């Protein structure tokens, strides 16, 4: 299964590890039960081929059925205990000193905000979460439009984002790396293309990243870049997108202040390369049919300037 960056069977966080342990317990129990029942069935059928095998007496049969039922009851109650105990353990992850993130689901992308008591230190990005390794993370989940579900199988199970409610998921990454998550609740046309990455790094690398994200977009340093910014500010982009440090302050699309640092476009649909960016801006409906991003009808020149400018948003 590839590099298993989106797999419940490759846990890299304590929560997913606990679930994975429970899974293997249930898997092996189930396997034993399955094999035992099929063996019993086979023996039952096999005995019929022997001419001397008669019907077992009702009493004998009743004894066996009762025994099998009793074993089932004990096994099931054991599994119930295991399940609830796992739930209790997962709830014990301390949220003190946790990193607070707010994720809002939109059709079909993720807005990510790093909370801070000082509003000016808050950071908004999209479709990509950077998190420190070994520190609990408390993510509050909200939905802008319809129900979505936040799911990074390597780290935890899924929790829904529901309009009018706020949910919480607490997790912790124990191994640095890039993990992939995906919306798990059907949310309309492009439910298939609503992925995101979680980049788990050591805490100093994470702090560096966070500090960098807090800075506004750098001013354009060449005439081409200036005209690129002009396309943003005067064209249709600013109606939906925000680029801090410019006049673009739209709220319906991803924050683009540091878009060039991100690895994918359109919520994990295509890799973030200049070519992909160009064709995405040119005809988003071709790459992600139904996306709320309209075709903008920019001229070839404007498009080039715009892409060049966006490339500088590091």
């Amino acid at each position, binding site marked *: 299964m590839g590099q298993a960056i989106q797999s419940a069977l490759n846990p890299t966080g304590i929560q997913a590890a606990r679930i994975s342990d429970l899974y293997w317990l249930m898997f092996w129990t189930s396997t034993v039960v399955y094999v035992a029942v099929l063996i019993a069935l086979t023996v039952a059928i096999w005995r019929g081929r022997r001419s001397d095998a008669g019907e077992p007496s009702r009493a004998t049969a009743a004894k066996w059925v009762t025994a099998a039922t009793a074993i089932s009851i004990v096994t099931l109650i054991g599994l119930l*205990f295991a399940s609830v105990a796992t739930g209790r353990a997962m*709830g014990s992850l301390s949220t003190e000193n946790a990193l607070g993130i707010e994720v809002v689901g939109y059709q079909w992308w993720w807005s990510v905000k790093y909370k801070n008591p000082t509003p000016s230190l808050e950071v908004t990005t999209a479709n990509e979460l950077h998190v420190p390794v070994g520190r609990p993370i408390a993510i509050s989940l909200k939905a802008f439009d319809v129900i979505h579900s936040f799911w990074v199988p390597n780290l935890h199970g899924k929790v829904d984002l529901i309009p009018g409610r706020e949910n919480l998921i607490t997790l912790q990454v124990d191994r640095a790396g890039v993990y992939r998550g995906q919306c798990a609740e059907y949310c309309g046309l492009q439910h298939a293309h609503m992925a995101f990455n979680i980049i788990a790094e050591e805490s100093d690398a994470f702090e560096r990243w966070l500090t960098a994200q807090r800075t506004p977009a750098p001013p354009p340093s060449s005439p081409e870049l200036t005209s690129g910014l002009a396309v943003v500010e005067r064209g249709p982009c600013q109606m939906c997108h925000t680029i801090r440090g410019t006049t673009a302050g739209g709220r319906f699309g991803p924050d683009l202040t540091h878009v060039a640092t991100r690895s994918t476009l359109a919520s994990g649909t295509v890799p973030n390369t200049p070519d992909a960016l160009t064709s995405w801006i040119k005809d988003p409906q071709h790459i992600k049919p139904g996306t709320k991003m309209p075709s903008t009808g920019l001229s070839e020149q404007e498009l080039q300037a715009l892409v060049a400018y966006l490339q500088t948003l590091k």
Partner: protein
Amino acid sequence: MHSSTGRPVSHERWRLAALWSGLLAGPSVALMLQEFNYVMSYVACETRQTWFLHVATVVAVAIVGAVAVFAWRASDGHPLEDEHPTHPLEDETRRQRTRWMSGFGVALSLLSILVILSMEVPVIVLRTCQ
């Protein structure tokens, strides 16, 4: 309406009630307890207490246990003689059916008690607000 055996009809009514409640009461109580627990889990979180959930379990087990006993005891005794005797085999049919309903009620009640007790597991293991 009196039966020809002289057994009062009210006794027969009780027996019927016992048999039918055996068929219906156990699982119904289990389901009601579940809804009660579900609603009260919010209260449990607010007040950080779970004693009422335990009490509900005990009450539910007591009710279903009583029903089981009730159904069990309804199996003995002889059925009424038929008011419109048309079928030669009816007496035996009734006796078998009464025993069957009684056994059915007892078994279903026991299973219901198991379900009720299983719902106690989360109350014991989990903390009130998770």
